[in-house]
């Protein structure tokens, strides 16, 4: 009998195309997702070496980071540099014959939302993309992680990555979540517990009842931020929830192939007794709606808390916290729920799916955004946008005073015109609160869609449970 394996071990073993004596492997890549920002130099490299894309049928491109999200984008992109990048992707996709969703296709959207939506992402696959939030696809039990541009070129040319195996880490969330607590709170609470380097060198498998109870949308939110905990990838074993989501998607297997796939997918779980190098267990009932107060995703506190002081920390974190508080313009001891905001951003690969928009709309319904606050809802894909319009969510947002945008990464990283002004404070459903992330000197508080919606209505950080 073979030794018990983790889910990560199983997927890894199924994809090793070559192993050198020192353990360096060539890992075969099943799906390669490509966007306009981290790929032009890789395609240029292929051209210079006269190399083709080895598996164009396994390569999927979509512009997302740079695209404007205003309705006038049909007239073209005004910013010249952004336009050149999007045009380059367009040309590269066509020249190399890879799957492509151009900016005017209703299926266009954030690459990590489009992949699952179109059935490109399937359990047991290896998925890479020149973007750290590729971890999102781990929600399907796919080994998925971000890579740099040199590795993008390597995958385009060889359909493999040079890799050494990571260690196994288990994050278990036991029991049930309390009302008002979401997948976003789980993933932020985990980062709060491990720190942003706690997962470095590991692949995390999320498990436990609270994870099992999540929809695929929620699972994607959890895995999306594995990278914010430092982990190369996050994984959740596939189950009926996964199969139900995948079935019938345009690129999901059909007929006899579906049955064959399902048979294999059902073997994708961690065996009893398999070894984990690190384990974290949190009780679902102990997790509260959380927000970040600082400039690192590990700066997480329950909304009922107060702004900490630098002296509350140890080591290098003392200076880091001092710097964060100064940047964020916050005074220690201030209740988090008394912090006024200027802007609200609902969207991103973390929280730009239909379930996220539903959760926000439920809080917003029949209410108005607080005076002086600007709110923006940016669906993760054209199809999410269409579905939200069909369900009447867009009307709810617009009636409340939110701008209802076209799909893209938008103010999550503010490469396009959607940015904070210096000093502006934003309640955001995105994934990073780094200095300058949402605009030069902009201030970001990360939270769930419901919490962001509640903040929009009250004009300050707000406990969503008080308005549910």
């Amino acid at each position, binding site marked *: 009998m073979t030794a018990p394996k983790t889910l990560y071990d199983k997927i890894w073993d199924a994809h090793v*195309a070559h192993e050198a004596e020192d353990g360096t492997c060539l890992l075969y890549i099943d799906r390669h997702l490509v966007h306009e920002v981290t790929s032009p130099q890789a395609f240029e490299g292929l051209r210079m070496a006269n190399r083709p894309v080895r598996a164009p049928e396994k390569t999927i491109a979509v512009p997302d980071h740079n695209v404007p999200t205003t309705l006038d984008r049909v007239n073209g992109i005004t910013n010249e540099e952004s336009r050149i990048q999007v045009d380059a992707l367009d040309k590269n996709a066509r020249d190399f014959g890879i799957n492509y969703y151009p900016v005017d296709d209703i299926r266009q959207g954030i690459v990590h939302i489009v992949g699952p939506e179109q059935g490109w992402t399937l359990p047991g696959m290896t998925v890479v993309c020149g973007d750290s939030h590729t971890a999102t696809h781990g929600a399907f039990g796919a080994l998925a992680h971000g890579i740099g541009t040199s590795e993008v*070129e390597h995958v385009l040319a060889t359909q493999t990555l040079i890799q050494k195996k990571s260690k196994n880490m288990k994050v278990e969330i036991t029991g049930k979540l309390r009302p008002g607590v979401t997948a976003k709170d789980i993933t932020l609470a985990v980062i709060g517990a491990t720190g*942003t*380097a706690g997962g470095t060198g590991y692949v995390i498998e999320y498990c436990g009842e609270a994870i099992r109870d999540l929809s695929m949308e929620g699972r994607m939110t959890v895995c999306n931020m594995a990278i914010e905990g430092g982990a190369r990838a996050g994984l959740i074993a596939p189950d009926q929830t996964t199969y139900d989501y995948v079935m019938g998607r345009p690129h999901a297997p059909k007929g006899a192939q579906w049955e*064959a796939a399902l048979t294999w997918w059902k073997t994708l779980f961690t065996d009893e007794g398999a070894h984990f190098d690190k384990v974290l267990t949190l009780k679902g009932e102990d997790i509260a709606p959380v927000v970040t107060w600082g400039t690192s995703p590990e700066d997480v506190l329950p909304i009922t808390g107060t702004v900490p002081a630098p002296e509350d920390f140890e080591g*290098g974190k003392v200076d880091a916290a001092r710097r964060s508080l100064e940047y964020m313009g916050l005074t220690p001891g201030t209740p988090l729920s008394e912090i006024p905001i200027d802007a609200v951003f609902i969207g991103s690969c973390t929280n730009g799916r239909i379930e996220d928009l539903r959760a926000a709309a439920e809080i917003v319904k029949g209410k108005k955004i607080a005076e002086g606050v600007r709110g923006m809802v940016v669906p993760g894909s054209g199809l999410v946008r269409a579905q939200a319009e069909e369900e009447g969510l867009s009307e709810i947002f617009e009636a409340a005073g939110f701008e209802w945008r076209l799909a893209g990464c938008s103010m999550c990283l503010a490469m396009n015109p959607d940015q904070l002004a210096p000093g502006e404070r934003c309640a955001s459903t995105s994934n990073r609160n*780094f200095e300058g992330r949402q605009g030069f000197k902009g201030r970001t508080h990360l939270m769930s869609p419901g919490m962001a919606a509640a903040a929009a209505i009250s004009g300050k950080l707000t406990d969503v449970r008080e308005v549910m």
Partner: protein
Amino acid sequence: MDKFTTLTGIAAPLPLINVDTDMIIPKQFLKTIKRSGLGVNLFDEMRFDSEGNENPDFVLNKPAYRNAEILIGGDNFGCGSSREHAPWAIKDFGISCVIAPSFADIFYNNCFKNGILPIALPQEDVDKLMDDAERGSNAVVTVDLESQTITGPDGGSISFEVDSFKKHCLLNGLDDIGLTMEKVASIDTFEAQAAQSRPWV
């Protein structure tokens, strides 16, 4: 790719934890379709004010460190985005070695693809080098990849670990794709077998 064998140069201290890739190269500079020319924007929002004037307090603006070739940082250096523009900017500025207690995974890998040696050392060794670096232009440090040693300005020596394959590539300036192409038969075989066992992929 540039080789990395030995490097003797000025070390600049950046005693911050969680230096993220948004700090190293903010997103407005990711719109390029080239790899070169990003050095002038390295640490842009820390180096310059909104009018583009230099912030005199930032380490790389101080006369002693303007020609630094080694950077000493804090824990979890290079966290965040996978943007390879971060190592491109570091290299283009003239820095070929980053020393810190720990690195984020993707950044660490990206360095090796660009002729930069990232070195993870125990905190006390980094603290010592940080003190050395604070001495300004006297802080000349030598990094020898072959022998895996760092020699500080006072002659003290620190050894470091590096993956043997990555070391080999860096010492010889090898192109990963070229190396992998030598194993194309293994990839062909794997692909053919996978097409049988997982035809839906």
